[in-house]
């Protein structure tokens, strides 16, 4: 079962709307630490609405895309084995809908922090 979980959403009783961030590459925790709690970066928007993501020493420029086919975010119920692609059986709750994504496909611009000062 895939049930919209109205109890997870806001007071209005509608499903929560999340946003998708699409990045190139992989997510790896810094310094072998736990991923949970660690920072990814700062997300800004230009006045024209262009998303700008500062991750570590990189600046990424992206664009806001309205998804033609929205996504549902499913969370498996019942503490059973995790929902894997090969075993999609079981009871799921729809936690949120995603209708928008921020797509970052441009090559990251490195931030140069050590600029030799003119003496």
């Amino acid at each position, binding site marked *: 079962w*895939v049930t919209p979980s*109205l109890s997870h959403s806001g007071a209005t009783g509608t499903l929560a709307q999340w946003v998708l961030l699409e990045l190139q590459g992989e997510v790896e925790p810094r310094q072998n630490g736990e991923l949970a709690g660690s*920072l990814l970066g700062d997300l*800004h928007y230009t006045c024209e609405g262009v998303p700008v993501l500062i991750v570590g020493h990189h600046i990424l420029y992206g664009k806001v895309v309205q998804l033609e*086919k929205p996504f549902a*975010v499913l969370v498996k119920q019942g503490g059973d084995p995790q929902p894997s692609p090969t075993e999609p059986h079981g009871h799921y709750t729809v936690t949120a809908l995603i209708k928008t994504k921020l797509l970052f496909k441009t090559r990251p611009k490195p931030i140069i922090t050590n600029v030799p000062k003119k003496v």
Partner: protein
Amino acid sequence: AAMRSRAEVDATLQTAKLNPAELLPVVHCLSFGPQAGGGECCLLQLEPGLCAELEAGHSLVIRGEKDEHAVLCSKDKTYDMKIADTSNMLLFVPGCKTPEELNADPASCNIIHSQIAGFSNNYWELRRCRPKLKKLRKLLMEDPYDGPDSQKDQTSTFSKYTTEDLLSLIQASEEEILHQLQVIDACKIEGYWRILDFDYEMKLLNHVTQLIDSESWPLSKVPLCACLEELGSLEPREMIEHILVSYGRKYVDAGEIFFEMREDKICRAIAQMLLQNAVKFNLSEFEEVWQQSVPEGMTTRLDQLQGLALVDKSSRPETIFLLKVEDLPEDNQERFNSLFGIREKWTEVDITPYIQDLCAEKQTVGALLTKYARSSMLNGVKVYNSRRPIS
């Protein structure tokens, strides 16, 4: 980790040589939430209509036993599920605002701490598919109902299925299942869905057609009440009504219920009754016996037997034999293999009734033939044969 402050954000902007004047005042500081790495969330790409259904509070169901490919069902449609990989990383972020939302609602704060709920490099894709309904008939055929006097039911060890049972076992939406139950003339007896044993069904039909004949009722106006009265002593009233509903069209006239008997369906059933007794029949002999066996006033035609029987025009004399489409495999390739195993070359007219049900939404028989068969000419007629050698 401590939450970033606005001062730290501004310092980063300065280092990055970005001009704050060119940016909206609100920043989202993104970090990974406590469950982010757990892999408990996954993404399902929604086909048109499904998003609206979820927002309206309806549920979607994933169905399939361990040995079946899982399908997703809305209340009236069925979809195949397939994993799609992306080369990119997808992060799902609650409480993240778009520029539009920020502009529409000037915030009192200039920093939002957003926790990434999870991430993935794949998602489930959906593709509308035919509901997998062959299993429905198979389950109900485990124990066909053959009347109240049957010794079977008391000692029966076979499973009987309620609507809920069927919903959990059949890979189709509820509407598709209920519609198919109607199509196969299933009926509910003591809360369980049952298919009638064919001989019992013909017995019931015969009671009705004989009564119609002896009362000289027009085939288009058979009264329900009179049938129940006259036949109620022979068979359960529910069964009499069921056979009328299966083989007639119900209507009301001056407050009374009547049935317009369906000539094609009755002729077809009688043909099945005749044909199931032998491997094949001499065609002209069969046609004669068949016409004599149907109720007075009905006319038999070979096109009533589409998907039920096949005529062999190449044999001398011409013959006819039973071939029921519902006995053939459900999978496209297996169906075509089976058909080409029965007959090497088929005309489009002959094969259409046996592949019509395979057509997906907006797919034509022609498209199926192009994909699964190869065409050639035989005596000036276009015929189709297998693309591969049949073993």
